[in-house]
């Protein structure tokens, strides 16, 4: 199942692209697949030392914050769009 991924900030710089497609059934699978595709430096940016997605990266599934869905267990479907955006620290 092909999911559209949009990357922003330093994640896009490291991956070398700002948009790609990937096959996955959940957000968790999608993040793992991205880490495998774009290598160790990308993985380090994506996950904290406990192996969880970093708290300063926001993940949106079809524009909805994944924390308001089922977090890493959120199911994703063909043609869904997932955005990974460094969190904006208010103001």
């Amino acid at each position, binding site marked *: 199942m092909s999911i559209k991924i949009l990357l*922003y900030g330093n994640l896009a710089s490291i991956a070398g692209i700002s948009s790609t497609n990937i096959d996955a059934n959940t957000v968790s699978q999608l993040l793992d697949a991205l880490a495998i595709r774009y290598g160790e430096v990308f993985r380090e940016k994506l996950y904290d030392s406990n192996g969880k997605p970093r708290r300063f990266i926001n993940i949106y599934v079809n524009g909805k*914050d994944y924390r308001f869905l089922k977090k890493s267990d959120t199911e994703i479907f063909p043609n869904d769009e997932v955005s990974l955006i460094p*969190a904006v620290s208010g*103001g």
Partner: protein
Amino acid sequence: MCRECGAIYPLKLLYACEKCFAPLDVSYNLENIKVTREEISQRKKNIWRYRELLPLENYETAIDLGTGLSTLHKAENLGRQLGLTQLYIKDDTVNPTNSFKDRPASVAISKAKEFGVKAVGCPSTGNLAASVAAHSAKAGLPCYIFVPSDTELTKILQASIFGANIIPINGTYDEANRLAAQVAEHYDWAFANINLRSYYVEGSKSIVFEICEQLNWETPDTIIIPLGSGALYCAIYRGLKQFKKIGLIEDKPTRLVGAQAEGCAPIASSFKEGLDDVIPIENPNTIAKSLAIGDPGDGYYVLRYAEETGGTVEAVSDEEILEAIKLVASKEGIFTEPAGGVTIAVLKKLVATNYFRSDEKVVCAVTGSGFKAADTLVKTLKKPFAIDPNLNSFIEWKENYADYRVVFAPEVIQNQRKF
């Protein structure tokens, strides 16, 4: 410098640490700062009197509309009612665009000018919109403002009059924020609270620098601060530390109290539950629209600093907010927007729990003018009635309606639960 991993970057347009994505703060070589109280007191009455602790290469090129040194009222009437002998209100309704946001906007747009950017902007709940728009007009820069579509018209009017492009978003502030971050990156524009954020928040420190100076260089015991994203709270925390470090005030503790509305209280809820991070809320619903940020970027740090300073984070209802607006207006002659009502309502709530010593120096931050939220507040008005233009009519009015007050009729409030 990264707030989490300590990575150091040169001064440039950057909105998060490139290593761990945590917020970046401007760091200063505090050991080398030798400014004295006397030197500061002789400078112009604007935020640039604290120039050593603001991040501009040349303060003389600052985009300055006259922001700063707003009044610190000794709130004797309100203090008497609440049993506090040293209660103060920092009145930032008197800044050029009538809110504290002129402080960070002045620094952010000045820095944008220094960087030579093509355009500026921000996502906003309304107050920052007007302030960034005004400063960009003065700087001669195109300006793009992203606001939730339910933002008060008075705030949109104010931003529009300065010539900014206003983009209302069908969504919450958090969604406007996300879109603005994408736009800033796509066009390489400078947005005040996004890729200029590290500089922007520095301007907010000036509110606590002024409080200390206006208290005759004494350290306040407690400061009550309204919380939207938590950026102002964190700026006050850092400002106090810096003033203490360079010896301008005595190194004694200041409790920092955060104030939220119950309709959008993700930080207060997490604090009460003893959590170490904030659980965002999806759909804020409060009359305090300038604080309606469900995913507060600095909430995580507010939790830490509230614990560290011995402070707390409280939430109050919309009814308590309206009562507090009326209270501070009738006792001290200050007309605040709902965010300031949140501060005063939290003060009242804490007084009821004996949180304060009667003689401690308590400062409440009133951060925006009531006129900026006029279309929210006007919904709560009881319509005034007219009398005939003769003395008898007045005498009749005085005998029958002397206690009549136009503002915030309770039955009207009940009918306006959805704002």
